[in-house]
């Protein structure tokens, strides 16, 4: 199915845009804005509003129509989670209904990585960008071990608290140190016969689902991921495992 943006007629390609140009407001600025929108490939570009902001900056609202289209049937998504992401409340509800016990999750920045910003964003009470962290979930027992945790210690701890899932955060990616470190965790788990015991997840700004799965993880979460995504993935996997058991 070929699609374009919808204004008031199917596939009319209508798009609204707003942006700033580093020039004063005025006829020349407006014409520059219109030409710019046409250069983006829009037809019938129209500047419907402009105003001066600071010295030498002006703001524009524009409309245009595009002939560019996409074939919806060929669209593939790479995320670990599908279309449905549970909110915190929904995730807890699903856990209560389907598992009837608390889900235990252990997370850490492993190896020499001292950057807890990623694991904190997912796990800390406050969360990130208005998405609560896993500690805030009533039906999740979250253990954030912090930074520079050796892989074997992380596994020991996960066993001790009878964890369902292990989260590994890797922010530092210089010389691909994150790949070595992520690989080591999987190898240690395999050597101890524990790979299937846990759902193992990796996260970080440069880590996507594709990379994580290639390295032997159940899933990976990159930029733009929140606790909601991670919780949804873990909960769905646990339910799937329960049904398969």
């Amino acid at each position, binding site marked *: 199915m070929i699609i374009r943006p919808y204004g008031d007629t199917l596939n009319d390609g209508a798009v609204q845009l*707003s*942006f*700033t140009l580093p020039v004063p407001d005025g006829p020349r600025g407006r014409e520059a804005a219109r030409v710019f929108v046409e250069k983006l490939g829009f037809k019938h570009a129209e500047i419907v509003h402009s*105003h001066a*902001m*600071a*010295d030498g*900056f002006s*703001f524009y609202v524009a409309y245009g129509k595009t002939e560019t289209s996409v074939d919806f049937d060929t669209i593939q998504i790479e995320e670990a989670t599908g279309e449905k992401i549970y909110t915190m409340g929904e995730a807890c509800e699903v856990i209560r209904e389907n598992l009837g016990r608390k889900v235990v999750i252990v997370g850490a920045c492993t190896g020499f990585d001292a950057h807890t*910003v990623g694991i904190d964003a997912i796990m800390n*009470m*406050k969360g990130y*960008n*208005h998405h*609560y962290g896993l500690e*805030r979930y009533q039906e999740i027992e979250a253990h954030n071990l912090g930074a520079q945790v050796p892989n074997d210690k992380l596994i020991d701890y996960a066993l001790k608290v009878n964890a369902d899932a292990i989260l590994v955060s890797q922010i530092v990616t210089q010389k691909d140190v994150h790949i070595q470190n992520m690989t080591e965790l999987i190898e240690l788990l395999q050597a101890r016969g524990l790979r299937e015991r846990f759902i193992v997840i990796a996260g970080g700004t440069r880590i996507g689902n594709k990379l994580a799965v290639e390295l032997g993880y159940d899933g990976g979460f990159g930029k733009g991921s929140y606790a909601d995504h991670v919780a949804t993935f873990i909960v769905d996997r646990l339910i799937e495992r329960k049904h398969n058991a």
Partner: protein
Amino acid sequence: METKLALPADKIAQARELSVRIVKPVMDFVEAHTTVTVERATLRLAGADGADSDGVPVPNLIVDQLKNKLEAGALLYYVNALVKTGETVEGLNAKIAAGLRVGDLPLGDRSAIDRKASELVRAFSDRVTRNRQHREAKLVEFEGKNHSPMLYLIVATGNIFEDVKQAQAAAEQGADVVAVIRTTAQSLLDYVPYGATTEGFGGTYATQENFRIMRAALDEAVEKHGRYIYLTNYASGLCMPEIAAMGALERLDMMLNDSMYGILFRDINMYRTFVDQKFSRMINAFAGVIINTGEDNYLTTSDAVEKAYTVLASQFLNERFAYAAGLPAKLMGLGHAFEMDPEIKNGFLLELAQAQMAREIFPEAPLKYMPPTKFMTGDIFKGVVQNALFNFVSQATGQGIHLLGMLTEAIHTPYMQDRSLALENAKYVMNNMADLAGEIEFKQGGIIMNRAHQVLDEAVAFLQKIEQLGLMDAMEKGEFAEIKRPRDMGKGLDGLVKKGPEYFNPFEGYLKAELGLEG
């Protein structure tokens, strides 16, 4: 102040009495202690500045050298070194940066040290007094030119020179207050970087040179637009008092400074924070700097409807802590926020009740009102409406400091156009309903009045509970923001030092005398 909510005066008085009793034992602890950053702040007030070739700041070099001698006060050794070497402050700083250890010099004649210290205190006092007088003169010169409430914008490029452009643009667009957001996690650094900086993540390092650069840029804007522009930064985190000291020296006008925020949201040790906040606030008070407290943060982890009373209770405590540090009410930018779920029926009425209640309970405080953030979604069009409602409440209840809501909140740090649209939104709403507040009264026994009474009652009950537990125990039990913080945990505890019987800090003594504080 005209009252519209008929709040019972005895309840408000009871809350204040409880706050006095809650804060008293904490202040007794504070009086007996100092911290590495209080010592470094004192050194900075005396003129210690600069850094060694590894970038370690001179105040840190000194305090690190004095590890076991801090109970006597770091300033003693610094002043002693000035006397012994006959150096100027700048000369001594350079020597320390080059490796001189002030703690290794034998202590000399005490009266010479006292004389030298008095000289340094006077130099500090003169400089900060000039700053205060300059601000006051400009506020008189440009009286009536600021918006009411004052419109507050943030810049956060990471590069101080880029921040300058954005700040000047914000001033041109009509901002009254410009805050430079700090780089991520600066609050957890136990030192203040030195010099101008151009690389930060999500914000710009708070350094004294950056303060100076931004102050100069905004002073240009003040003259150009005929309106005083308040410069704001963060006296918070592990270097809270040092940043307050830098702010006093470089004429900042507002500083974010909360008595409990660092403990709860940055996991900084509570003893450390309580000691640090007192000294910071004394400096702020002397410099005429308005503090902004962080109650809005409670609502990011707790529900704004259910836990509204914790915001009010914290305002009472912040007020008490501020009085205990010599801050007058007019410098207390007590915080709160428009953070209720937009799906709630009559949520707007509850927000209005909360804001009006704060206004009536703290009539002299320039209340700092924070925009919606938690329920901003990325739907920028809805965001504009949410911000418009927030702007309405702020104007209708006479808030003091109005943080502008960004339509792109939850998406990215603001673009120039986001700020411009936010200012247009606020100016439109506030001008269009400028005198509405004087025209409306609230219905006796109506939703708004009942809600305000209920929140006050709950805050009093909560303060009673805190008083019984003791503030530190209450924080250990997670009574605030549902976050538990054990008293012997958290960052910075190792920087806490019990003052010795001979503790030397004439700056502290001077500030206490000036602010009319005991001891």
